[in-house]
């Protein structure tokens, strides 16, 4: 039997690669950046010149409204903080005449978008899934849900956080990336079920644009949604609490973990004044233990702690602090790094693997946490661990039950 991934890995790693041309990349990168700045300056000068001739254009550029809608609650995008690369994005509740199930609609740089719930099992208390369609018009001014649109269809299950709001969170948000942008660009499509005590959300992008997301009811549940370019980093999502159409002044805020080519993942929610984990990242394991070269990184921040393999998807633990020494990912099949956290005082761990071997690992400090990773091998998983202090004394030990170690971890 041949595992294709493993074979490809071996074959491609046997390809000899020269030294990284760092200086050339820096030189070309600077040139590229300067060209962009010149282009931005030129377009700004052009806009200023035209605006001087037509004052109404200056007003329009400060906050375009969706044609046909004038929802008073929509916040104006902040153009002053907008990156020149980001289009202006808007998000509105559905028009009165919108299709049934429409959760939200808006514009991305002049292209209309809409998110429409298309069906679910509609079990009143605990629906198992909800299906939806996301539309983005191919042409500026075109109808979002017309034949002119890119369409993405998906169903999100309760396990993805949609439909059922987890715990005390204000929303369960399911996010995907799709190649449905106007020019084939990648867009983030985010749809979420909203808790009963939420009035609205304020979504703030890193470039300063801000959207007000007003929950819309459909078949007994409340939802919000947005579509935006995938590379628009989300600074925060703040839930204004109280209830439908009632703001009691309390808020709770989430900062998602957002890889550059992955959908944002919302984990922890914080109230004002609550301690937030510091942002920190680092490589927590790497090597070539008689097999493929591998590495794993960790990212700590307001989202919790996310573990990222060399090439792959993140696994996140939505906790403000990790609880002492534990294995949070055990590896196995498909091949993946095993990873975990270590309590203060742990100098190293010996991790037993399902193939009978033992691997010794040393924790690495990342922010508030001490983390470790190891490569168990193809089809091999970590089963037990023993933690030692610097003098070699056993501090603690534990075993993993199949599946238990990954239960608090959300795949990204």
């Amino acid at each position, binding site marked *: 039997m041949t595992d294709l*991934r493993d074979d490809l890995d071996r074959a491609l790693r046997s390809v000899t690669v020269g030294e990284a041309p760092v200086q050339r990349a820096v030189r070309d990168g600077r040139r590229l950046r300067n060209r962009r700045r010149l282009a931005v300056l030129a377009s700004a000068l052009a806009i200023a010149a035209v605006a001087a001739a037509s004052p109404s254009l200056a007003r329009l550029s400060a906050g375009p409204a969706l044609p046909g809608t004038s929802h008073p609650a929509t916040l104006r995008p902040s153009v002053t903080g907008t990156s020149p690369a980001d289009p202006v994005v808007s998000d509105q509740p559905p028009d009165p005449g919108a299709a049934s199930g429409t959760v939200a609609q808006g514009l991305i740089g002049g292209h209309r978008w809409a998110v429409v719930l298309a069906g679910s099992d509609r079990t009143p208390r605990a629906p198992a899934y909800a299906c939806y369609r996301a539309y983005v018009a191919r042409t500026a001014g075109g109808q979002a849900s017309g034949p002119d649109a890119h369409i993405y269809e998906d169903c999100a299950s309760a396990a993805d956080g949609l439909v059922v709001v987890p715990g005390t969170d204000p929303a369960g948000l399911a996010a995907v990336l799709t190649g449905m942008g106007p020019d084939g660009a990648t867009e983030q499509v985010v749809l979420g079920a909203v808790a009963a005590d939420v009035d609205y959300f304020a979504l703030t992008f890193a470039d300063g644009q801000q959207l007000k997301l007003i929950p819309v009811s459909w078949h007994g549940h409340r939802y919000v949604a947005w579509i935006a370019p995938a590379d628009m980093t989300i600074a925060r999502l703040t839930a204004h609490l109280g209830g439908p159409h009632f703001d009691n002044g309390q808020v709770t805020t989430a900062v998602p973990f957002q890889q*550059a*080519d*992955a959908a944002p993942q919302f984990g922890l929610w914080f109230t004002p004044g609550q301690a937030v984990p510091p942002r920190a990242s680092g490589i927590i394991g790497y090597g070539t233990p008689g097999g493929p070269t591998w590495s794993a990184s960790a990212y700590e921040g307001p989202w919790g702690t996310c573990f990222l393999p060399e090439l792959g998807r993140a696994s996140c633990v939505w906790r403000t602090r990790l609880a002492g020494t534990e294995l949070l990912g055990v590896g196995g099949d498909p091949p993946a790094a095993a990873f975990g956290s270590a309590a203060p005082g742990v100098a190293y761990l010996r991790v037993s693997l399902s193939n009978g071997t033992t691997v010794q690992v040393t924790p690495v400090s990342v922010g508030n946490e001490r983390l470790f990773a190891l490569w168990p091998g193809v089809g091999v998983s970590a089963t037990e661990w023993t933690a030692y202090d610097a003098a070699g004394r056993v501090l603690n030990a534990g075993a993993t039950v199949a599946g238990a170690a990954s239960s608090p971890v959300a795949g990204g």
Partner: protein
Amino acid sequence: MGTAADEEFAEFMRGRWPAMVRLAYALTGDAGHAEDVAQAAFARAYAAWRRVRQAGDPDAYVRRIVINENRKRFRKHRVPEDLHGDLRDGVAGPQPGLEERQALLDALGRLGPRQRAVIVLRYWLDLSEAETAAALNCSVGTVKSQASRGLALLRKDAVADGRGEDIVEGGRR
């Protein structure tokens, strides 16, 4: 960008250069183009380094550029593909499996560009069908069909080369 940021970028690029060149090589089938594509991707990452860092995962950013650059390249013109050569190992002594590795690269090189991209993204990078479709700007149905045909061709080549009778998928939905 200040000196510290430059140093950070340089360290990142040195560390991730081999993986990105190999990804580009798997996608383009050409060692020279692979280095060009990877170099261009890192240059773009440098140009937006502050924002790339804020996004939290520079690795993924560069990887996406590599995939996009390859996609654009095939949209513009058909490029002759060759996954032969450049198979040297840095370790002295006998290299068990070297022929098999070369045979797999040969078989990969015989796939069409989109089939190869689907195979690499699905079964090497372990992207889901939806993620692969998004990365290649095609439908999930196209990913499924291209993956199925690509795997069938790889299996056929594996049998013809005497490397075994089956190739097992390692991806996930």
